[in-house]
């Protein structure tokens, strides 16, 4: 897994590529929590994530919780079918704010 962080119209975007599993989810968690400190709006681009397991989901939930506590926005976008499947099975599709595209994230 790799991550790259950038800014688009005041929203911090973290582009994630690769597989999010037990090995890589601690890195993801760390990167996202650090980014969250520096911004009020954090969006995670999952379009290049072909795999996520429950440890990845747990990391995203932890970031969501931190965002809520800080009254910040935390959005996921670009979900592949694999990511969608896991969120559906774990009944979390309505817990996260989920958008199709980066444009929708910025203008919703």
């Amino acid at each position, binding site marked *: 897994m790799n991550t790259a962080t950038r800014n688009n119209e005041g929203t911090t975007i973290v582009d994630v590529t690769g597989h999010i599993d037990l090995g890589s989810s601690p890195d993801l968690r760390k990167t996202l929590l650090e980014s969250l400190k520096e911004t009020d709006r954090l969006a995670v681009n999952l379009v290049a994530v072909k795999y996520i397991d*429950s440890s990845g989901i747990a990391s995203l939930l932890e970031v969501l919780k931190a965002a809520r506590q800080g009254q910040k926005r935390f959005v996921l976008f670009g979900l592949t079918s694999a990511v969608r499947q896991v969120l559906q099975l774990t009944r979390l599709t309505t*817990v996260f704010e989920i958008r199709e595209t980066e444009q929708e994230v910025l203008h919703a």
Partner: protein
Amino acid sequence: MDVQVKLRMPSQARFLAVVRAAVGELGSVYGWPEAECQGVILAVDEAVANIIKHAYHGNSEGAIEVTCLGAADRLEFTLLDQGDPPDPGRICSQPLDDHAHGGRGTHLIRMIMDEVCYERVPGGNRLRLIKNLPAVGCTEKERSDA
């Protein structure tokens, strides 16, 4: 003749990718629909991750054996470890609508697989996972087009 893939690996997360690749490739050889493949990959990955986390508590020197038996109508997985056995009371013990961070792996495994059986055997802890294939009587081609 059926196909058997057996992996012996240390309890290290970096080898999960090898498990996923082998399971995924087996599924696509048998012409499973993409979504079924993804589900089974996830279930097996979660089960191995649980061994790394809970049976061996993150110790990287534990041994894990994953056996996949592939046939046209089902896939069967046997996972073996010599770590701490699972406490049956904790498997799927946490309600899914609790938004705590953990506790989802065993739910995913049960939702995806048709049979899930944790056993204590002379060689250690054994977990058997069985997935029956959806399509009966349709060709591999039709299935892979689905």
